[in-house]
C-alpha cells in the first residue's frame, strides 16, 4: 500500500511540480490542495505520513498549519516540510521553531526532495 503525502501549496505550477516529484517516488501517493483550509478538512479524512506546505497562502498561512498539526495529538508526529523562497528566512525559522522537520528553498531540484522523502518515510 502506498503512503499518503499531503501537499499544501497555492501556486498551481509549484503544486504540480511538487506533486509530480513526490509521485515519482515509488510507494507514495500525493494528495494535493491549494489552501490551508482544505488541508484542515483533509487531515481528519486521511492518514498522512508526511505533509509538505508552503508558507504564504491566502487563507491560513503555513505556520498556522504547522502549529495546528503539531499541537494536535492526532497529527503531531507527522513530519512536516516547509517550502520557502529565498529571503523568507524569518518565516522559515519560525516554521522550524514550530516543529517543521525540514525546509526546501524554491526552486529546488527534484532529487533533494526525493532524498528527504525517502529518509523520512523510510523508503528504500
Amino acid at each position, binding site marked *: 500500500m502506498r503512503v499518503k503525502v499531503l501537499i499544501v501549496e497555492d501556486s498551481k505550477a*509549484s503544486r504540480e511540480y511538487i506533486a509530480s516529484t513526490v509521485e515519482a517516488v515509488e510507494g507514495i501517493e500525493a494528495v494535493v490542495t491549494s489552501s490551508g483550509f482544505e488541508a484542515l478538512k483533509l487531515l481528519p479524512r486521511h492518514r498522512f505520513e508526511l505533509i509538505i506546505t508552503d508558507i504564504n497562502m491566502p487563507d491560513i498561512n503555513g*505556520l498556522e*498549519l504547522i502549529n495546528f498539526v503539531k499541537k*494536535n495529538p492526532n497529527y503531531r508526529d507527522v513530519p512536516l516540510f516547509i517550502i520557502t523562497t529565498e*529571503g523568507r528566512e524569518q518565516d522559515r525559522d*519560525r516554521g522550524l521553531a*514550530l516543529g517543521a522537520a525540514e525546509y526546501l528553498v524554491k*526552486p529546488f531540484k527534484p532529487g533533494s526532495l526525493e532524498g528527504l522523502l525517502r529518509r523520512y518515510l523510510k523508503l528504500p
Partner: protein
Amino acid sequence: MSAPSKALAEFVAEATEILEALGKDLLVLDERRGQEADPDRVNGIFRAAHSLKGLAGLFGQERISRLAHGTEDLLDRLRLGKLHLNDAVLDTLIEALDAFQALLAETARGTETDGLTRRADGMAERLGHLGEAPVARDEDPLDRLELEAQVRSVFTEYEEHRLRENVRKGVSMWRVRAAFDLSDFDKGLADLNTRLKPLGEVISTLPSAQPGGAHGIAFDLIFGTQVSVPELESGLKGTPAELARLAVRPATTRSAEALVRATESPAIVLGTLGVGSAPEASTGTSPPASRGVRAATDGGTHQPLFPLASDPSDTEQGETGASGQDSEPDGEPAPSTKGPSLVTYLQGPGGRAPALAATPSGASQAGAGAASALAEPSLRSLTQTVRVDIGKLDGLINMVGELLLIKASLQRLAESARQEGVVPLSKLFGQELARETRGLERKLEALQEGLLEARMVPVGQVFDKLARLVRRITREAGKEIDFVIGGGEVELDKLIVEELSDPLMHLIRNAIDHGVESPDTRLAAGKPRRAVVSLRAEQKGNHVVIQVSDDGAGIDELRVREVALTRGLITRAQAEEMGRRELLNLIFLPGFSTARSVSELSGRGVGLDVVKNNLGNLSGIIDVWSERGKGTAFHLTLPVTLAIIRALVVGVSARTYAVPLNSVLEILSVQPREIRTMERREVLDVRGQTLPFVRLSRLFGLPERPVSRYFVVVVGLAQERLGIAVDELFGQQDIVTKPLGGRLQSVRGISGATDLGNRRPVLVLDVAALLEEGLALERRRA
C-alpha cells in the same frame, strides 16, 4: 507564426491570467494615487509577482523569471513597510507590467530579442535599487501589544508587519474567536470575513489547536478596527463569533500625541489603556462587556495603566521621511520631443494646419514613430482561451442532457416505426414525432445561444488595458486628462473584443495627441484645465455601440475639405455639394492620412482608414461627430457576435446570397417605375426620404432579368442606409460565415461564404462594404 508547444501555450495562458490580475490591481492603485494603499491589494500584487516568478522558473522562462524576481522583491519591501509607495515606485511597477507583457508576447511568438532582454534586465536592476531604507524606529509598536508569544510565533513576516502598522496607528485590536463544524467551516469563516472586512482589517486567521468538539474546529481571527464596540457587535450579529479585545500598552508620550491626532478620537486611546468602556463612552450607547466582550488579559497577562518610559520614538518623523520621496523625479523617461503631428485628425482653430506642412518631413518622423511602436505592445491578448463562468457551462451541460432525452424519444419512435412498418403509422405517431422535433429544435436553439454566450466576454477587459496606457500617453503628450470609462460590463464576442483593442487604442491616442488641447490653450478658451476623454460601451439591440470622445478642439471640417482637395480625393465640384457630416467622414478615406507607413503599429498618426478597415472586418462601422471647440466623438457600431448570425436568403439572377439580418431594417416591394434617377444615380423615395439604391445584379455584373417588381432590402448601419434590389426572397436562416480563401478574399461586397444545408455554398453580403460602395458610387457619379 509557428504553433507554440502545448506546454508553452499553457505557460502563456497562465502568465496572461496572472498579469491581468496584476494589471487590475495596479490600475486601482494608480487611480487612488495619493491615498493610502489598501494593504490587501499590495499583498495581492506581491502574490501575483510571486506566482509569476515560480511559474516562469518552472517553464525555464529565464527573462520573465528574473524580472519577476526583481518585482517580487520590490513588492515584498512595499508590503512589509520597508518601502513607501510613491509615484516613482508605482510608475516603475506599471512599466514593469508593460515589460512583462512584451516578454510574454515574445515568448508566445517563440522569439527573444536582445533589446527587450536588456530592457527587462535593466528594469529588474532598477527595481532592486528603488526606494530607500525606511527610518528606523526605536520602539517596535508590536511590543506594546499584549499577545502571547505562542500566537506571535505563527505570524508570517507580513502578518507581523500588518499587526505592527495597526498598533502604530492606534487601531484597537481584537481577537475574534469562532467555532464551526469541520465540514463547512470555510463557509462560516468566509461569512465572518465578509462582515469584518468593511469594519477593519483581518490580519490573521489562526486555527485553534484545541479541537472544538468531535467534528468542530475553532479559529482565532486577529482583527484591527476603528469602529466602536456596539458597531462591531452589531456587525457580527448572528455569527458564532466571540470578541476579546487585545490590550495595547500606550506608546511614549510623543507617539501618543501623534496617535491622538491620527485617530482624532481620544476615546480610542483611552481604550488602548485597557479601559474597555471608553469607546462606548464616546458614543454613549450600550454598556461595556455585553455579549461576549471580555478583556483579552484573562490569560493572566498584566495590564499596565500608565505609559511606559521608553525612548521617544516619533512615528510621524518616520512618515515624513518616507513620503519625502514623493518629490523625487519620476522614474519614467522624459517625454520625447515630437515633431509636428502628422495628419489624421486635424486640430481645431488653434492648430496651425500641421496636416499640410507635414508631408515633406515625413521621413524624419518615421524614426520616432517606430520607437514608440516598440514601447507600446499590442493590447491583444496572447491566448485564445475564454474563461467561462461555471454556471454557464452547467447550463450547457443540462441542455445536452435534455437533448439526450429527446434523442431517446426519437429512437423509440424510430424503433416502433421500423417494427410496425409504414401502414399502421397513425396520426398520433405523426403528432408525437412533430412534438419531439419541435422540442429538439427549441433545445438546439437554446444550446446554440448558450454556446454563443460562452464566447462572450465583457468589453471592460480591453477597457482596463487601455486605461493603463492612457496615463502614459497623456504624460508623454504633456496633457492633463481625465479618462472616463463606462459600460465595461457590456458583453461582446471574444473575437470582436480582441480585435477591438487596436482600433480603440488608435482612436484614444488620436484624441490625446491631437484632439485635446494643452492645458494653457484650454484655459485660454475658457475650458477647464483638465480635458475629459471618455470610452463608453452601450448595448443597442443586436449591436454594441462604443463611443470614444473628447472635449477637445474638435475637427475643422473646412480644413478636412482642403486636405481632401489637395490630395485629390474629391473634386472641387463634389466638395461644393458636401454637407458637414460628409466632409467629416472624409477623414476615413484611404490616402487622407499621410502617416500610414510610419505608425501602423503604434497608433500614433495612424490612418483612420486602417481603423475603419479593422472595424469593417468585424462587420462594424465607424461614424464621427465633431463640433469645433467642443470636441469629437467616434461611434463604433459592432455586432454582438460574429460566430452564428441570422441571415436573409435572397436570389438575384438565379444566384443565391445571404444578407446578415442584423443589418436589415425593412423589405420593400418596389415597381420598376418607382425607381427614379437623381444625378445619374438611382434612388427610391421612401416615406418622403431619398434612399440610395443599388441593383445587386449590376453591382456584381450579373445578367439582369426583366421583372415586374423588385424586392428592396433596406440595410443600415449607424446612420447609413441603402436599398439593395433583389429578385427573390427565400426566407431566414442561421448561418455560420466562413472566410473566403485565396483570390476571392478581396472581392468587395462579400464577407464570406456559408453552407445553407443543401451543400451548396452561398456568398454572404458584406453590408458595411456595400454601404460604402453605395456612398462611393454616389460620390463618383455626382
